[in-house]
């Protein structure tokens, strides 16, 4: 095991469109997309994140996405946006 730098590109392995907030601090953001992203460099490696800036109805399994970093409160989180297959954010 070790770490290595990756491109930030990946594809949606699976996702859910969340309609009910179980944690009240996420209620304002409904509906939102929680997804498992398989990273481009190794498709057996998946990360859990949000897919943002997209109509939840347009999200599909296999959709190419690219990481971007979003400030939420005091933290910066890696989230994903739809991308073209060469990795450009749409």
């Amino acid at each position, binding site marked *: 095991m070790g770490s290595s730098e990756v491109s930030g590109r990946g594809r949606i392995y*699976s996702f*859910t469109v969340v309609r009910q907030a179980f944690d009240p*601090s996420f209620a304002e953001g409904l509906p939102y997309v929680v997804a498992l992203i398989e990273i481009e460099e190794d498709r057996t490696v998946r990360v859990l994140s949000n897919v943002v800036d997209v109509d939840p109805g347009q999200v599909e399994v296999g959709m190419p996405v690219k990481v971007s970093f979003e400030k939420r409160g005091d933290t910066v989180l890696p989230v994903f946006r739809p991308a073209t297959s060469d990795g450009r954010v749409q």
Partner: protein
Amino acid sequence: MEGREVAVVGVGYANPVRVGQPGIDKLTKTACVAALNDAGLVPADVDAVVQYSFGGVRADSPTATSAQRLLGIPDLAMYNDIMGSGPSGLASAMDATMAIASGAADVALVYRTITREAGHTGAPREGPNLAEGGMQWTAPFGYSGGIMMSIAMKMRRRMKEYGTRQEDFGTIAVNARQWGKDNDRAVLRDPISIDDYLSCRPIAEPLLLLDCDYPVSGSVAAVLTTRERAADLKATPVLVETMAYGTGSDPDWIFAGDFVFGGTRSAGHRLWSRTSLRPDEVDVAELYDGFTHITMSWIEALGFCGIGEFGDWVEGGKTIGPGGALPLNTHGGQLSEGRLHGLGFLTEAVLQLRGQCGVRQVPNARVAVVANAHGPQTGAMLLRRD
């Protein structure tokens, strides 16, 4: 299985309730006393107690030694509190089976008590401000509600890989009510149609409200002993043919090697490798339905149809309903009876094999399969009547 042959000789319930909080000691005592009475045994006969609970700060099931005190059992040769991991309530019976088969104990009392509060993962809750441990990778993205979003993503992936349709999941929800209407313990007994299912409230798409079991307070207990001892007892003994656990590789609810099936496939394979019985000899199946996806996984993992073939196999529900080739969750499962968390699948199988299920009895049931849980913590038992 190696060792002494094991039989289930008693089952008991504290009936599930939707409202009120009867208290976990009272629920446990009610179910355990009923199971002992059913077996024709008294507390002094018991020398092992095993229970399953979620653990944590607010207890949802009393510890084994608490139950020992409650019931006045003189001493225990074996006891265990299984918490959090393990194949839900069935874990208690699997543990007891090993204790009896090995000779560590002779008469085991097992139970799963649960409260509506503990089973109500969908309730809005105040989480910690700081996500710690594994939750740091999930909670900041709004991943909450227990395993609900994991199950939703498994459903979506399944649909993509195998062409499973939303209504295929719905056949399991409709089937539960169809059987549950004849179970006096069941809390949701009104029939539903596939249209009711498809039009119900989405929780985390594609997971719908009717894909989820219903939280209740209640308790289920069972008594297990040797086949030899069982011969002297009043009820028809139900024998444990074999059993198997499974975790799958990289066991985890989210980052598992086999995301869609978790450990169900390895448990299924292992189960059939330990018996000469075959899937087509099973008369009744009681397969965990905390979420419909779990039941569907077990049907395929246990080889009742090929992987990905549930939709064709189920014939709109005909296969699993009354008179079907594989009567499934004949008590209505947890979708109808309520979320008793696993052990109720075993006790229903026992009642079916004894022929005591009244209107919902499967004629001449001799072999039953029971399975619990999904993801990294699965288990299954194969039961038979001589």
